């Protein structure tokens, strides 16, 4: 167990009461308990309230652009096997702008932990509907409400054999912390979606709304996250009851295992580059 203040960073700009706070807390606790030091982890994010996350945590940070969290994290992982790689994204970032990369990440299965802060709204841009906003959600751009249902994010993951799929809730810190720990220790692509109330722009999906609906999937009598069909059903469950916990697990080789392993030292100081004579041999 490392001291929590080891991860203290700059002051946050989130609204008081935002679901991002308990998430940050739980994440720090997970790191501390796993004894992952700041210099042993890189957190990649995009743009959004949630994407400010790595700034508020001491760690190697790459805060990129909206929707492109996963490609940056994947490129990093392909050439660095030593650091823990975590991708943090909002629902708009990951499921809207970045949807195509999510599909590719499920296929590739890089050893990365993806955490989506799902507040079912575009927070930083002031409350437009996101791909996970419930049907009928109103905003200045959707005064009549969103006319179609939300993306089924976890079912998307299960259908593509994502190797680890779970859902957490910002309102259940201890449970969330344990999911973070499991995700961080899973080898391969771990996808953790967290229900994160946006107290400012999402007046529908509030702490209360979630509390009334969430339950632990593990408490389902002999639930088996390796049973794909069962997992699919749980993944699709939304509305009256919302399952929390590890929904699906599937053993698959990590992407990077198919590639040469590069060492940080050799990257920093390339001892040997190909002799030109060897390269030219093909062209005589």
């Amino acid at each position, binding site marked *: 167990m490392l001291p929590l203040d080891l991860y203290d960073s700059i002051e946050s700009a989130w609204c008081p009461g935002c679901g991002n706070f308990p998430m940050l807390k739980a994440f720090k606790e997970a790191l501390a308990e796993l004894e992952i030091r700041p210099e042993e982890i890189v957190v990649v994010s995009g743009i959004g309230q949630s994407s400010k996350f790595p700034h508020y945590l001491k760690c190697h940070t790459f805060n*990129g652009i909206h929707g492109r969290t996963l490609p940056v994290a994947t490129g990093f992982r392909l050439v660095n096997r030593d650091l823990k790689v975590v991708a943090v994204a909002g629902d708009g970032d990951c499921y809207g702008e970045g949807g195509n*990369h999510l599909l590719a990440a499920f296929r590739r299965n890089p050893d990365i932990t993806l955490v989506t802060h799902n507040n079912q709204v575009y927070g930083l841009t002031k409350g437009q509907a996101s791909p996970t906003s419930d049907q009928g959600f109103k905003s200045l751009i959707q005064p009549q409400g969103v006319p179609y249902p939300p993306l089924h994010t976890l079912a998307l993951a299960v259908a593509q054999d994502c190797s680890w799929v779970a859902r957490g809730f910002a309102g259940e810190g201890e449970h969330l912390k344990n999911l973070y720990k499991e995700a961080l220790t899973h080898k391969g692509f771990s996808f953790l979606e967290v229900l994160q109330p946006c107290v400012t722009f999402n007046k529908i999906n509030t702490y209360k709304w979630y509390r009334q609906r969430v339950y632990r999937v593990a408490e389902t009598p002999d639930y088996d996250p390796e049973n794909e069909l069962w997992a699919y059903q749980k993944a699709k469950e939304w509305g009256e009851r919302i399952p929390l916990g590890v929904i699906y697990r599937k053993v698959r080789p990590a992407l990077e295992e198919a590639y040469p392993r590069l060492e940080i030292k050799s990257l920093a100081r390339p001892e040997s580059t190909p002799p030109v004579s060897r390269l030219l041999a093909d062209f005589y």
Partner: protein
Amino acid sequence: MAVDLNILIGGAAGQGVHAISLPLAKALVRHGCQVITRQDYQSRIRGGHLFNVIRVADRPLLSGREGVDLLVALNQETVTLHQGELAPDGVLIYDAAHVKEVPAGVRSLALSHDTLLPGTQAGEIAVNAGASGAVLGLLQVPVAGLTQLLADTFAGKGPEVVEWNEKAATRGQELGEAIPLAVTLAGITAPPEPRLLISGHEALALGALAGGLKFICGYPMTPWTSLFNAVSQRAAEWQVVVEQAEDEIAAINMAIGASYAGARALTGTSGGGFCLMTEGLGLAAMTETPLVIVVAMRPGPSTGLPTRTDQGDLNLVLYSGQGDFPRAVLAPGTPAQGYLLMAKALNLADRYQLPVLILTDQYFGDSQLTHTAPEFPEVAVERALSLETTTPYERYALTPDGVSPRRLPGMGPGLVVADSDEHTPDGHLTEDLSVRIQMQAKRQRKLEGLVQELGGLTFAGAEEAPLTLACWGSSLGPVHEAVTRLNQAGTPARMVHLSELWPFPREAVARALGSAQKLVLVEGNYTGQLNGLLRQETGLQAHHLIRRYDGLPFTPEYILKDLKGIA
């Protein structure tokens, strides 16, 4: 008597035009000739019309030319389309199975499976190898070099196939020899040091590998794909990580992630794909992540002519990405120059921590030139990393030259915090507008050092000539030869070629072009993009623009014809 022959091999896509051209061109180089090849193909996989031109001479060649001396036709369309270009004493070699009408009064040689490989199932091998052999025969070149090449190529397919190739090539050679040519290659002997035949994109791939490339990522797009292929083929051997991205946006962002991690990273694409990369371009600049991006041009707008050549993306690479930020733009004129510029690009990207763009095009990428090994020297790998491990580490420390000490995540203590928002020196996002001013100035300051390292002018022709032809990128060869011919014809002319376009080498260019009495710009685009840049940066502008935008590369003839009016 000087040797300068054009061999055109044409047919439908899939018929084996490349199978004939590639070994033939190599055989000619091994024989001691200077060769340049060009590929011309349509955006389709079978059928249609495609051809390669092999120009062969006894002196160095930088450009193709017009006209045909030997026409190898695998189908009727090739005859119809190209017979007009055939020189009076030229020869037509054709596949009797597909060519039924031979123009009257043209010397010709018919090839067929049964005359070449009677009683075998050799299929198209017969005419392909036979045609290559026939060309060598006509040129009085021994067939051994070719059969050796064919043997190497087809070794995998088993002894019978190798034998078929050898037989057909040899028989073809005999048939060819029987036809007398005014000019042959008989007098040519191989140089002590063997020569190379290499394309622009192959040379860039070599420059990247020799330059310590560790990560390449991209999405297929013609004509960029041939460079991606050339690296990927060699990646396993040299421990380079290759990933095909789901789209170009992913490609550039993956490359940025790999570069942030410390790998020398390359991505590339063509115009439409580059549009999708432009947001990432700004990300690389803002996070000061080294990155090399190859943009292989083809005619736009939009999908345009996907398999043709063009120089219409200069403005695109100069100005894409929101806001002002530093970048470098290079545009090689020959494979050897491309090799060196790629290595330089990787070093500049690392040393100045910014994106470096390399502009190529279909003509540059696919054409093979004859080079010698000394033109491909070993290159230095300048990582410019700060190895001391002070903490706290400031990724964006303000420095006089704008370059902050760069460290890699995992290299030691000290956290590497990179951010696309405006940020403080420690990499965290800020709303402090005075910091913003400092950071914007810091990033731009890098150009002051960078421009000192650029110039990249290539001169040819008569120094004080009143007529100057300026060009950039792939048109070096055609302009070079046009200038040579002008001088030979008694019109003093000079070529100035730009290969390093941004930050614009103002002084060097002003010095080189300021004195020109008649300045002609040769550009493969409609609006004259370099001309615009030239005027914006120096106030100079061309008296005349020679433009080409039909998808074909410049030729000396095209340039000279256009000059008629004015020079």
